[in-house]
Structures are given as C-alpha cells and as structure tokens.
C-alpha cells in the first residue's frame, strides 16, 4: 500500500536507505528514526527487540542512553532517544579502541560518584537527583571541587550526543539543515538586501 502512495523516486530513496542500513550492525532506533521506513523496507525486528550493545555493558549502555536523552531531550520534537544516539555512540566506541578506556572510565566514574553521593547507582536515582549531578558538571558557576574527571566526561558525552543527534535525519530536520534538500537548482541569496545591516528582521522564531 505504501508503494502505491509514494512516488517512485521516494521509493528508490527508501531502498537506498535500507541498503545503507543493512550495512550497519544491528541498529534499531537510529536507523533514521523513520517509522514508515522501518515497517515498509527494513527486515522485521527480532522478537526480543532490544538493542545488543557492541561495546558497553548493559548497565553502561543504559547510563549512556539516559545521559543522551537528558542532554538532548524529546522536548519540542524528537530527541536523542528517537534519533538512536546511544546506539551510534556504542557503535563509534566499538570502532575506536583509543577512546574506549576514557569513555568507559567516565561512565563508571558517574556511577561510582552516584554511589558516593546517594548510595545508589545512577539509574537508581530519581530525575531530580540525576539532574543535580549533571548540573554540577555542566554549568561553570556550579562546578565543585574534585569533580574534574566528571566534568571532562560530561563534555565528552555531550560531544558524542551532539555528533550522533545532528548527523541523524531527525536531528538535521530539527535545525532545518538546508542540505536535506539535495539539489537546489539555483542559488538562494540573502532576501534582505534592502536591510543590509539586518536590523529590521521579523521577530525570532525561537
């Protein structure tokens, strides 16, 4: 049915996506976060459905998944979860032996620190407690002594979350990446040439 409602070139595009996806190891969610694509073109998921991490332990992976969705939440549109950012990070870490010890240490530091502060694993904390830990790592005026390693890990985690999210289809759609239109045909110059200083633009959208 989908095939009848979609134009030929779109179908070809879907097939191309699927072909690309077939070369990837076991991803579920990040493969373009397109429900219709999943259903129409990708092979059916195994019954278990859960993503099997390539590098992280199940606990580490769950922490990475939680951190990614805290950094880019699903507010005002899809976030890191829908974009499958944690799968991407797991795949990249599995491919990057040089970075593995650093990243793993960071995740483990966070879990250990959570035990130190609250006597619970990070995933055992409520959202407020998790946010409190991250706030101290993320904001300069809330930095605390002896959390340097945690701050370094937070920056690393933020970097890879941004990398994963803004190279996914949903992430690029979120910022309105012009390159999603593959061929423009003609150049689209500045439309405000009678306001070169750009002092009289319409009010910001965001």
């Amino acid at each position, binding site marked *: 049915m989908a095939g009848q409602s979609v134009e030929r070139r779109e179908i070809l595009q879907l097939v191309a*996506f699927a072909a*690309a996806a077939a*070369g*990837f190891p076991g991803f579920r969610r*990040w493969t373009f976060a397109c429900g219709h694509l999943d259903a129409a073109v990708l092979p059916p998921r195994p019954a278990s459905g859960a993503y099997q991490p390539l590098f992280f332990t199940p606990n580490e992976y769950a922490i990475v998944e939680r951190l990614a969705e*805290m*950094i*880019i*939440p699903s*507010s*005002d549109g899809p*976030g890191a979860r829908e974009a499958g950012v944690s799968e991407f990070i797991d795949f*990249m870490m599995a*491919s*990057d*032996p*040089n*970075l593995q010890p650093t990243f793993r240490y960071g995740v483990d530091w966070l879990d250990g620190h959570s035990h130190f502060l609250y006597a619970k694993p990070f995933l055992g904390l409520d959202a407020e407690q998790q946010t409190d830990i*991250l706030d101290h790592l*993320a*904001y*300069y005026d809330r930095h605390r002594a002896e959390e340097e390693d945690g701050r370094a890990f937070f920056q690393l985690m*933020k*970097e890879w979350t*941004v*990398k*994963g999210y*803004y*190279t*996914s*289809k949903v992430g*690029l759609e*979120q*910022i*309105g*990446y*012009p*390159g*999603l*239109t*593959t*061929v*423009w*045909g*003609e*150049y*689209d*110059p*500045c439309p*405000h*040439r009678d306001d*070169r*200083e*750009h*002092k009289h*633009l*319409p009010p*910001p*959208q*965001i």
Partner: protein
Amino acid sequence: MADKVYDVIVVGTGAGGMAAKTLCEARATVLALNPGRRVEPAKDFQNHRQPYNMKFRGFGDPRVPRYHDEREYTVGLWEHDITYVNAPGTNWEWLRVKVTGGKCNFWGRSSPRFGDIDFKAASLDGFDVDWPVTYEEIAPYYSRVERYVGIASTVQNRPSNPDGEYIPPMPFRCHDYILQQGAEKVGVPYLPDRIAQLTQPHGGHPACHYCGNCSSGCDSGSFFSPTWFTIPDAEKTGRLELRTNAIVKNVLVDENGQAKGVAYIDRDSKQEVEVYAKAVVLAASCLETTHIMLNSKSRHWPTGIANSSGQLGKNLCDHLYGNSAYGYLPQLLGQPPRPDNISDSTVVWMPRWQNLRNPHEERFIRGYSVYPGGGCGGFPGYYRQLEGYGSDFKKNIRRYYPTPVGFTIQAPSLPSPANYLDIDPEVKDIFGIPALRFHFQWGPNELMMWEHSKHVCEEVLRAAGGEYWGAAKQPETCGFSQHETGPCRFGNDPKRFVTNRWGQTHDVKNLYICDASIFPYCTDKTTTISILTFTLRTCEYLIENLRRGEHGA
C-alpha cells in the same frame, strides 16, 4: 621491436592535466602517468549521500588513518603507500590523492590571478627575488584559462588583485552583508571571491546544482576538475594514452644527461617499467615533482636531475592557514535557516589590503588574504560555545544555527634556508622508493601576519555587531593548505634557479615542470588557476620546441 617513443610523457593528471590537454590538442602524442586508478565519479563521488547514510556518519572509521581533508565520502582515493619523513622539529602533513585528477577533484576553487605586486615583490620591498615574468605577458594566458574553466566573480579594481574574465558571482548571504558593514567601518575589503564554480552553464558543462558537497567531488562536473575537463578533452584528440597505477620513480637520462623517459613502478605488480619520450613534463604536484627529481640521480646529476644550481628542493614555501576569529551575529538569532552553504564555496574573500601604498607599512612585508565564512552549515560545531544541556541547550542550537561566522587566514611563508626538501638517507616506501624528507617551520613574517589577522578579524566581527568567541590557539599544521611552492623555482640565472622563465629546467632542455614548484613563493593567493595558466604557457613553448626539432626528430 623498438620501444615506443612518445612526443611527451606527462607525469601526473591533476592541475597539470592541463599539460596533457594542451599538448594533445597541439597534435603531440602523449603518455600520461597517474599513480592511482582512474576515478569514477558515479561510484567514487558520494556527494549526495546524507551523513546518516554513511556508516560512520561522515566522521570516518576511527581505526583508519586519514588526512585532515580525507572524508569518509572520499576514503580510498588518497595516497597512503608513498611514505614521507618529517625531520626533527618539522610537523608537515603531506596530503595526496592518488586517483586521476588528484587533489583537483576536491579543491577549494578560489581562483585569483597573480599580479605584478607578486611578480615584482622583491623590487618593491627588497626581499628575495623577482619572478622572471611580467603580468602583461601572463595576462592573456589567464584570460584563456578563465574562459575555459569558468570563474564566478566581479571586477574589483584592486591594486593587489588583477581582474579577469568572469561569469556572474555567487551572491552574498545574510551574514555577508552584515560582515561587509563591519569591514567597511574597519576599512578592509569584503568582496565576492573568484570561484571556479559554474553559476551558469559554461563550455558544455552544466551549472552548479548546489548540493553543497563539492569537497566530496562533483558528480556533474560543475566546477573545474581534470576529471571533467582536461582529461576528457585530451582523450577526445585520440592522442592521449593514460596509464594508471604507474608510480613514477625517476627520470631516465641519455648519455648526455638529457631526459629520455621515466621509470615507474606498477602499483599492482610492483615491477619497474621504463617508458620513453622526446620530452618529459613533471606535473606531479610541487612536492612529488621534487621527490622524483631528487630521486633522479645519475652520473650527470649526482644530487638530482637538473640540480647544477643546488637549488632543487630549496625555498619550500607554504600558506599558513588558521582560524583568525570566530563568533556569531546576534542579529540573526532565532531566524529561519537559510541555505547559506549550498555552494560549499568561499563565496567571499578579504583580499590582501596590507602594504599596498607602501611595502613597509606593516611590521611584516608582503600580505595575506582572509576567507570569511558562516551561516547555516551541516554539523552545528558551535555547540561547544553553548553551556549546559537539556531542552534549553537544544533550543539554543536552533537559535544560533544561522549566526556563526569565522575567518580563515591565508598567509604566505617567506623562503628561508631552514625550509627545504631532501631525500631521507634510509627510509623507503613499500615500492622501494627513497622517501621525501621535510624540513619546515613557520618564520616570523608569517607569524606576524597571523597575529595581525587575529586583531583585524576580531575588529571586523565586533564592528559588524557580532559577538567574539575567540581564535584558534595556533595555526593549522604545515602542509594543511596544500599550496606549497618553491623547490624548483624559476628565474633567468641558471646558477640560482632550477627552471627558466618557461618552466623548462636550465640543465635539461627537454625536461619541463608544470606545477607550483616553479613559483618562487606563495603570495596571498591560491595556486591552482596559476598552475593551469603557467602550464598552458609552458606547454605551448614546449610544442614550439618540438616543432623546431629541439628535442630530436
């Protein structure tokens, strides 16, 4: 059966592919040698694939060593088998593309003419040597190349930058108008760049379709590359034989020390093969041409072919590149995204404005240019400037998307006795070819330009109402720009220069050089359009010599 003797062997198919075209069209039989396979645009150029369709999202496999310009989209097209060595204290990255067309498949496309301000720089400021040519004699060759290639720009009447023959320019984007206001207040130019990219159909090539991925190669041939221009033109004549996977090792000489051909290693079989011609053109890129010449040792040329001057490999120059300032334009915060980078071009430049009225106005001599950039791109690299996380962070990424701007300096290094190339006495690559060794450091003149540019670019940004985020802590690695010049300098005195005013070596009359190695220094301008221009001139001179029987019957 006697071995075939071609009229000319051309080593390399990059910018010097212009040589093969020019020679073939003048009815010479040409053997062109390329170190890698033939590039196949439909298969090799993945420029219409989105990052999420790439296995590593365009970041590439972290386990595979890559050059800074080598993207996941072009992996496999680059040369990694031919080793090179950095002398202690040198940190040079030698990027090479091995497929036909070379680096010119992905080049930056900025195409300004050199002028007398460059050719006569020594007369103006007393440093080093003038070039053995005048703008007046070179200008017609520039015009012919510009008509062939198609350059988008405007007539600008600037003393540092002779104007050429142009197709319509790339139009300004929002941030260009804003930054231009700032530049006007500071008193520095902000103008359309000269770009070898087709804003309209040109010479049988379609106009750009603005997919914005030129650095992955063009599938429609809408900017100049040998792949779409010079190689097909040369092949059309029926006089070109293109041999791929042929890694040239040295020039062969006859009993008089003149060139009789070249020896190459077949990449697959690793066997050495000899080929013969009346004349040899080295167009392998500034560095590889020098590598081949230094390795061409014989009884006649114990330190490398055509090196009686001792200058072969000396005078290595490079463009210092670096991010002189970056920040954002609050005027554009929260505005809808605009297709600012669908041309993937420099679009604008701030052409040299220093030392124009008086060659000693500044504490440095000569001058540099700057390429501003900005607006909506692909990956939001400015996220590093945005503190925090969560929904505000996500919203901020969208708010700032149209606003980031930055300035890249292009500053010429001056020739220095400390900067040169030689052959490492021990290291060889897997083909048994002795490795090229780099000796190079930035000197005070170019580092003063770097400091100067940081001040001016910050001033321009602030004068435009922008907010300043910072500047790079240090310039890019040596070799980054791929604009090196100098090791086969041209000049009239055979005792001081490797090549003469035609790009012909003084010592070996049937050996010609068609790349940037003949240019005495980098200038503030990019090199490709000038390589094409001087190649055209050199090859027409070579043809005259062939016709007159100078290189044998």
